[in-house]
């Protein structure tokens, strides 16, 4: 029997229906490497390939995928469909998501955004480090440099510090669960004052346990202050944002939670010496001041007394001089008076040749007081005579 020849449309319709009916190829995810990527009129046309096969892909409304480049590993969600008009089997993608490292990074960003919105990174939830940290709980691998660095730095600064290690897995599947166990263990240890969650540098994949949501929430809900120290200085994992404090390295974490007691104590010893010296100086100064003041006081009083003494002497001299002058002047005065008085002495006058006429005991100074026959006495310097007036 001859086979009937089918038209292209018929064959193509049939192929289309086969693929339309195949549920297994609808709403699936596929992954591969992008090549020949271009966006034309808002739609993306590219191929997705792996080592052995290649698939043609179309994504409508793909403006948001302009950052996709050839060579990217991506995961597409969509369906296989036969495009009869073009004679091609295409994968029609409704979403393109970076795969592998890119995918992990995307998930990191999404989780970071989600937790930040919930407030897990907020400063108001961060606990301060307590004073007087005596015991540190460290969640990290029991092998490797991290725990050694933390021990070395801590004990160098404060020999009395206690360190408890909870050995955990710090990479690989399920590592975050061991870390969560470690945090809970230290939460229940009453003597532990602060918790450090640490791991050393590593690849991006190695650090992934510290980006897990369950660990992030365990860090957030931790009842004790928690310091995260994961990877290198430039690595930031989710728990770095959630923790109460983030240290760039494990050694830095050890420095954060310990006081450099030896250095601080050496300073206290120096300050003690300064204290005693300062007090000694203060006392000495006060003493000098008192001495100075008493010397000054003495000087002042001495000077004052001297001055008064001098003034007194000067005054005494002045007084003496004045007294002498006054005395002399008075003496002179008296002498003059005596001389004057002497000159006025009637007896002297009588000696000079004058005589005094006395009648009835009265001195006669005028002839009018006399009449003829009056009896008068005439006093001479050497005696008196009686006489009678014969003519006036």
């Amino acid at each position: 029997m001859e086979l009937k020849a089918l038209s292209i449309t018929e064959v193509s319709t049939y192929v289309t229906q086969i693929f339309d009916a195949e549920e297994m190829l609808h709403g699936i995810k596929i992954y591969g490497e992008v090549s020949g990527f271009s966006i034309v009129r808002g739609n993306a046309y590219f191929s997705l390939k792996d080592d052995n096969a290649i698939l043609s892909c179309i994504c409508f409304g793909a403006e948001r995928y302009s950052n996709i480049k050839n060579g990217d590993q991506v995961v597409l969600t969509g369906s296989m469909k036969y495009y009869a008009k073009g004679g091609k089997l295409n994968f029609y993608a409704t979403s393109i998501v970076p795969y592998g490292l890119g995918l992990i990074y995307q998930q990191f960003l999404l989780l970071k955004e989600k937790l930040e919105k919930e407030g897990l990174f907020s400063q108001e939830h961060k606990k301060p480090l307590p004073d007087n940290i005596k015991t540190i709980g460290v969640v990290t691998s029991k092998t490797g440099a991290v725990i050694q660095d933390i021990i070395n730095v801590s004990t160098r600064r404060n020999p009395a510090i206690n360190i408890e290690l909870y050995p955990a897995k710090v990479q690989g599947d399920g590592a975050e669960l061991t870390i969560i166990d470690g945090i809970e263990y230290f939460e229940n240890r009453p003597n532990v004052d602060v918790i450090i969650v640490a791991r050393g540098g590593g690849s991006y994949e190695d650090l992934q346990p510290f980006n897990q949501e369950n660990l992030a929430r365990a860090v957030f809900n931790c009842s004790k202050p928690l310091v995260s120290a994961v990877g290198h200085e430039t690595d930031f994992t989710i728990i770095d944002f959630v923790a109460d404090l983030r240290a760039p390295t494990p050694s830095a974490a050890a420095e954060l939670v310990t006081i450099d007691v030896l250095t601080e104590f050496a300073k206290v010893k120096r300050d003690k010496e300064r204290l005693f010296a300062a007090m000694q100086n203060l006392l000495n100064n006060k003493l000098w001041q008192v001495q100075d003041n008493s010397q000054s006081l003495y000087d002042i009083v001495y000077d004052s007394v001297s001055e008064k003494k001098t003034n007194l002497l000067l005054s005494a001299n002045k007084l003496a001089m004045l007294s002498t002058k006054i005395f002399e002047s008075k003496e002179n005065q008296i002498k003059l008076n005596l001389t004057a008085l002497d000159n006025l002495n009637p007896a002297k006058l009588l000696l000079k040749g004058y005589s005094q006429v006395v009648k009835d005991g009265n001195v006669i100074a005028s002839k009018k007081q006399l009449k003829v026959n009056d009896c008068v006495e005439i006093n001479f310097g050497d005696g008196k005579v009686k006489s009678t007036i014969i003519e006036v």
Partner: protein
Amino acid sequence: MTFEQAAKRLEEIVNELEKGNLPLEEGTKLFEEGVVLVKQCYDAVDKTKGKITTAKEQLDKIINDIEGE
């Protein structure tokens, strides 16, 4: 008062005292406060060596203690 607080206050006191122009009574009071702080600092520095243990040791110890009862 923690060691750090005591050490800090001590430094403040020493700086104040070293200025040298305090009245005697105030200076003496500060000095006395300083001496007390020095003693506190000395006491606070625990010269004993700290202990480093792992969780397993602690758990073992707890188990031993329980089994011992």
